[in-house]
């Protein structure tokens, strides 16, 4: 396998323009002859399907939800970055590019990241024109805020529902194309296999989630915008349905998987309350602006009421350990320190599986200083949400928070055109590994999804189609198609007929999530990862032996859907651990206990300044590693220091 990034050369600010100028096009009247498949209807998929439909291609868009409007992009709260410099505070495309590269701890491709920063401004224009109700100032112009420790105010927002509003903008554009007949929408339909013919992606096998019917869809190119794989942890801030099946099926067909171990853990989520917990809820990071993080100093205080613990017995560990940044240290540092104090037995809240996993986020001082009204004004909706979920009033008693998996920077390896290692197979949004390196800045996920969907894919797909010209037709009964259908049938059959059915898929998913969370989570060790690599295959075997799926394949069967997704998470989880073990350095969100300098992550640029792209070998325990070296011409790698 050869990894060719196909990056243009020349001055970085000219690369995208030059690339566009010298790429192939498809003439408007020819576009109708091309069939395209888009998997996923979130920011990347919805935007891509709509934009490709507008161009005149014949597009089929698939989502497992009952409506394209429900894709999990909808849950993003904070905002979207764009280098508009409306605040006159010195922002620029270069600065956004620089911050993104640095935030990614020098593990992303410069050309892609520059393009992302460059396109950020177009996204805002597009969204505003669609009627996205961004926050405004009294003069009628767009408002901005500073987000995630950025030194400029470049984040655009729509209350705490920016993701929702941007998604609905894309959904409305998509709806317009559905009405126009250029896009056919397939809701409640799941992609279960990729059809590869003559070395190129030519279609998919889907299952209609209502009738269970398997169908094939043949196309000239397939675009995967199916989101991230955070649910490998079982508990995450992802939606329950978020899954890796589309990208994992593609990986098994030959698409390289890049940097699977780069998973972002968000520090301010509501802790787990019991073993039955089905998901974790994120609360905006902005809470750390006014809240103080602490745990009891003494183990015997952990089950006391926080009000009863005197000031001298409170351990404000972030303020003590990081006097310069205090409670505002970056996400990964805040997360890791919460893990450490809980591992030391100082965690608070209910015991789940024998351990208290929670730390206090206390607003008492802020309320005293600013008054309850100011705090209510700033965080009222978050406090309400917290109370709804926990039944505790954060105005009176400190919140309890704990980190949770939030976003996955890893994903399918793509070149500058967002094409995977399978020709004709593209990946956009969180499904690809592209722009965030080892860590993602706050308010950049929406930006990347929309940049890929609105502005990159519609163009690079044209380049691909213009290059391959018209592909020969592929009949539904071609052996390559039939083989893919047979593989799906066999898999469904296997899931429905385990030899010794005992447990629901969730049972195994929870166990898998437990292994990954403890051994491939916020702080990873060689021993832990090695253990995980041993344990996962055993659990996977047990899964295939004992998974119990009632009902049949020919009906709406949510248990069957989940079982298939869990099966793929087993293989992906394995790869994550292998990748994490292989990357013997700490960078961004990937923190290896063995590789630190004075308690800070120690990057090893000499040996690991590369993208790890894994090729499926047929054996989930022995993938093949390929490396794409990263070069930094415009930003010199530096080391972070928050002390």
């Amino acid at each position, binding site marked *: 396998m050869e990894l060719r990034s196909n990056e243009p050369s020349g001055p970085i600010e000219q690369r995208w323009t030059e690339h566009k100028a010298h790429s192939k096009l498809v003439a408007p009247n020819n576009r109708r002859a091309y069939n395209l498949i888009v998997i996923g209807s979130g920011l990347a998929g919805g935007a891509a399907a709509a934009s490709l439909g507008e161009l005149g291609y014949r597009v089929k868009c698939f989502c497992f939800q009952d*409506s394209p409007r429900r894709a*999990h992009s909808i849950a993003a709260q904070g905002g979207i970055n764009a280098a508009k410099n409306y605040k006159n505070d010195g922002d620029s495309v270069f600065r956004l590019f620089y911050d993104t590269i640095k935030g990614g701890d020098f593990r992303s491709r410069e050309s892609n990241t520059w393009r992302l920063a460059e396109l950020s401004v177009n996204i805002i224009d*597009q969204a505003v024109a669609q009627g996205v109700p961004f926050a405004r100032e009294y003069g009628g112009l767009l408002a901005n805020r500073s987000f995630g420790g950025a030194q400029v105010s470049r984040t655009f927002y729509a209350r705490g529902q920016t993701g*929702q509003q941007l998604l609905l903008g894309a959904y*409305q554009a998509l709806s317009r194309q*559905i009405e126009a007949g250029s896009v056919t929408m397939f809701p409640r339909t799941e992609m279960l296999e990729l059809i590869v013919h003559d070395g190129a992606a030519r279609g998919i096998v889907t299952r209609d989630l209502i009738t269970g019917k398997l169908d094939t869809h043949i196309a000239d190119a397939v675009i995967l915008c199916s989101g991230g794989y955070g649910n490998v942890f079982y508990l995450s801030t992802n939606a329950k349905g978020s899954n890796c099946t589309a990208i994992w099926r593609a990986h098994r067909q030959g698409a390289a998987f890049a940097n699977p171990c780069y998973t972002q853990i968000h520090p301010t989520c509501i802790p787990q309350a019991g073993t039955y917990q089905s998901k974790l809820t994120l609360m905006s990071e902005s809470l750390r602006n006014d809240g103080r993080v602490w745990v009891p100093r003494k183990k015997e205080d952990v089950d006391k009421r926080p009000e009863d613990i005197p000031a001298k017995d409170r351990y404000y560990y972030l303020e003590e350990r990081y006097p310069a940044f205090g409670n505002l240290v970056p996400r990964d540092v805040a997360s890791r320190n919460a893990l450490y104090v809980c591992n030391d037995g100082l965690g608070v809240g209910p015991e789940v599986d024998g351990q208290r996993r929670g730390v206090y986020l206390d607003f008492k001082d802020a309320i005293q200083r600013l008054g309850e009204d100011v705090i209510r004004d700033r965080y009222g909706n978050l406090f309400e949400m917290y109370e709804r979920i926990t*039944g505790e009033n954060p105005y009176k008693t400190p919140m309890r928070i704990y980190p949770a998996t939030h976003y996955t920077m890893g994903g399918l390896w793509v070149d500058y055109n967002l094409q995977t290692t399978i020709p004709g197979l593209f990946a956009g949004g969180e499904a690809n590994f592209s722009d965030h390196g080892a860590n993602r800045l706050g308010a950049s996920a929406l930006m990347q999804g929309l940049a890929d969907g609105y502005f990159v894919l519609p163009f690079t797909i044209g380049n691909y189609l213009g290059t391959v010209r018209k592909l020969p037709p592929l009949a539904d009964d071609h052996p390559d198609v039939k083989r893919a259908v047979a593989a799906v049938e066999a898999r469904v059959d296997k899931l429905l007929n385990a030899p010794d059915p005992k447990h629901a898929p969730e049972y195994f998913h929870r166990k898998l999530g437990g292994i990954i969370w403890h051994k491939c989570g916020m702080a990873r060790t060689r021993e832990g990862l090695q253990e995980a690599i041993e344990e996962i295959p055993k659990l996977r075997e047990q899964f295939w032996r004992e998974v*119990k799926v009632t009902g049949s394949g020919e009906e709406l069967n949510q248990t069957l859907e989940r079982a298939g997704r869990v099966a793929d998470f087993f293989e992906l989880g394995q790869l994550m651990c292998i990748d994490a073990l292989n990357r013997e350095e700490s960078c961004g969100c990937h923190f290896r206990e063995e590789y630190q300098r004075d308690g800070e992550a120690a990057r090893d640029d000499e040996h690991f300044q590369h993208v790890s792209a894994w090729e499926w070998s047929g054996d989930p325990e022995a993938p093949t590693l390929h490396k794409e070296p990263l070069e930094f011409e415009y930003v010199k790698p530096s080391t972070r220091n928050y002390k």
Partner: protein
Amino acid sequence: MSDQLLNLTLHVWRQDGPTDNGHFETYQAKDITTHMSFLEMLDVINEDLIEDGKTPIAFDHDCREGICGACGMVINGRPHGPQRLTTTCQLHMRQFSDGDELWIEPWRASGFPIVRDLCVDRSAFDRIIQAGGYVSVNTGAAREANEIPVGKLDADLAMDAAACIGCGACVAACPNASAVLFTSAKIGQLAMLPHGQPERQDRVRKMVAQMDAEGFGSCTNHEECEAACPKGISVNWIGKMNRELIAAMATAKDEVEVRGK
């Protein structure tokens, strides 16, 4: 964090498919902690059903943080259950008491045919949006975002309407199964913004025609929709839509064609 355990009797609507008659089935939910969400309680029941070799209860859900709009069931006669401004996924068991008897039903409306058990087909909402709930602006054709100022108040009001999550609780709550709150929220949002003006008249006529074609009932101003809406969308948007429609019908320069009866 006082853990209280609840024992509840659930009567859950079970229906194999759109043509099946459906019936209530009774389940005992035992030792449910008050920290569980309502859907987690159903997860527990379902896991037990699967392990007993039975078919679990089908229900729609996804984000479980109250924003995707996938979940929704009528709990003891109230869409999304007893807590105001809360989706089913955000409803927690501390809202109930030990020994409670709960009737759990799907959204009932001919515009939302039942798919299975508590899952309904809300694609009618998608078709209403497809009829005109957008601004026709192709990717790349947009002008500079700050070129058209939008008054803060107008932007805020547009955001109020745009907060709709399309869950369908308004239809479920309406004695007439009317979809006017949903439809009016999108019409209202785009009518508040300068970017929505060129298609303003066309949009309201097409969306209203589609809403009617989907078989939803008419508004008789009970305002149950607003009370059930997890996002608190105001019925004032319905009045706004009526105003928009009357004005469009009275002054539009062209005619909107609809399918003859």
